[in-house]
């Protein structure tokens, strides 16, 4: 794990229609780190995500990616090192799942054979080989989400000379059953092991606690805690932010914090 931040936010904030959706936020995400962002509905998670993905321009502050302000990156170069998985996708044309995944190679000029090999590998890793020839439109919500994950992983599967790789995910587990939630988070961890930095918005505190290196908790557009799962998963904090009485115990199997409400 490197020490130079891959993703660096300084004084990042966003206002729209007279409302502050994100208070000035500072955050460094280190190379190879898996950073989870948690918070109740309306806490500003999606706002943060849109600012990080460059979809919205911040009202103040800036996002640096690999030492260069996000706004200075060209689309083509950014696409080679950074993949973004939004919460839902509106694809309504019947592409075969494999063709959707293959689109992840679009930013790269690696040639058909390399691309096909990467797609095969990623499909195996994501457990979607059996969906390869199925039409995307005929897949269930969970299957679509896994195919989309495979697509973004395909995009940043190989190291590129251009720079360090980053994966941004917005609630990638929202449509998955328990087994696939765990699989997906484990997969994201493995990707981190392959020197890809990950920032993921997670709804489920226990998923975040088990798989993230560090967690940022947002509340009313404000970061209220940043730190290791042990530091962030405190009963008082959870009660204040999520408005539920909760206890935090040690996970009997994995030793990570476990939130029980």
């Amino acid at each position, binding site marked *: 794990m490197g020490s130079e931040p891959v993703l660096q936010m300084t004084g990042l904030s966003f206002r729209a229609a007279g409302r502050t959706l994100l208070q000035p936020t500072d955050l460094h995400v280190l190379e190879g780190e898996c950073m989870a962002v948690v918070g109740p509905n309306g806490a500003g998670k999606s706002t943060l995500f849109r600012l990080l*993905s*460059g*979809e919205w321009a911040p009202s103040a502050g800036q996002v640096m990616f690999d030492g260069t302000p996000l706004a200075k990156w060209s*689309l*083509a*170069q*950014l*696409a*080679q090192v*950074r*993949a*973004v998985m*939004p919460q839902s*996708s*509106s*694809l*309504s*044309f*019947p*592409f*075969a799942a494999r*063709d*959707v995944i293959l*689109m*992840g190679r*679009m*930013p790269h000029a690696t040639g058909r054979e390399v691309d096909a090999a990467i797609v095969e590998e990623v499909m195996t890793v994501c457990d979607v080989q059996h969906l390869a020839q199925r039409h995307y*439109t005929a897949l269930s919500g969970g299957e679509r989400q896994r195919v989309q994950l495979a697509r973004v992983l395909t*995009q940043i599967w190989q190291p590129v000379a251009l720079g360090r790789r980053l994966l941004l995910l917005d609630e990638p587990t929202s449509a998955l059953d328990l087994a696939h939630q765990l699989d997906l988070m484990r997969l994201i961890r493995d990707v981190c092991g392959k020197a890809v930095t990950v920032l993921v918005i997670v709804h489920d505190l226990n998923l975040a606690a088990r798989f993230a290196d560090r967690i940022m908790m947002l509340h009313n557009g404000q970061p209220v805690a940043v730190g290791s799962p042990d530091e962030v998963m405190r009963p008082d904090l959870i009660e204040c932010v999520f408005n539920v009485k909760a206890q935090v115990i040690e996970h009997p199997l994995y030793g990570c914090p476990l939130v029980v409400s």
Partner: protein
Amino acid sequence: MFQTRPLAFHCLLLLLLLGSFILSLSLGSMTVATGSLVEVLLGRLSGDVVTGTADMVIWQIRMPRVCLSILVGACLAMSGAMVQGLFRNPLADPSLIGVSGGAAVGAALAIVLGGSWSWFAPDWNLPLFAFMGGALVTALVYRLGVGPLGTSVATMLLAGVAINAMTSACISYLATTAEDVRLRNLVYWLMGSFNVASWQKVSWVAPFALLSLLMIPFLWKGLNALLLGESEARHLGIQVERLRRRVIILAALAVGVSVASVGVIGFVGLVVPHIVRLMLGPDHRWLLTGSALLGAALLSLADLAARLVVEPLELPVGVLTAALGAPFFLFLVVQRRRGQMYGV
């Protein structure tokens, strides 16, 4: 169906196009035997013209007509496929969403007022104005119909209804105020038929059919990515704004010159890409070329049918495509309602 190899399908389409080309040249009020057809064509190609009725009928009457129907068919089908990709919606058709109507108003303006601009490339007034009308409407409908979550079919089609109402009002207004001679030209053109075909009109449409074809390699990847969503396309490195501008201009050009030369012919841009998608899937790499070939073949066959069914009279081909296309569209709408529509 999706395993159909794209190349084989394209070869099939080429054969179909060739067949309809030969049929359209030989059949009509005067049937020309294959022998004399070959003779005339060879004569023309070698510069050693065999003058006579056969040459007259084939080269001066039927040839421009067949070429024009092929080019217009390719233009309409390709722009239909492109517009559907842009809107991320297989129900977008240049005639349904008002693009053809906008082009028609432009063309009608050029016909009625055209004399006043005779200093400016008089031969090109008609297609130029049609292009501007078409581009304006495409940009407008896009603005209205496309939100961050994709297109709203309802908004897009309703905008089309309103725009079509406006354009026909505009054309009626222009018709009432037009001078006699210009009115006759306008009415003649409004009927929308290939019997007005000429080599000049072929020369209007050909460059833009070619341009659309030549742009396919620069568009198909972006259009595929765009189907994932606008921000997804951006995250894959596609410059969405530039792509959108290109598609709007290309479609407006292709529809504009088509409308300027033969009037409004509906549903080609809807039906043709749909059939190609059924055969080859939604990948724009094959969809656009396949649509061009099938559009060319089908519209030339439709024109042949329009010439033959009520002989010695002639149906405007737009009547025929609407008679076939409109029920097809209704069928798609019903399917879509049942939630089984292929593509939505």
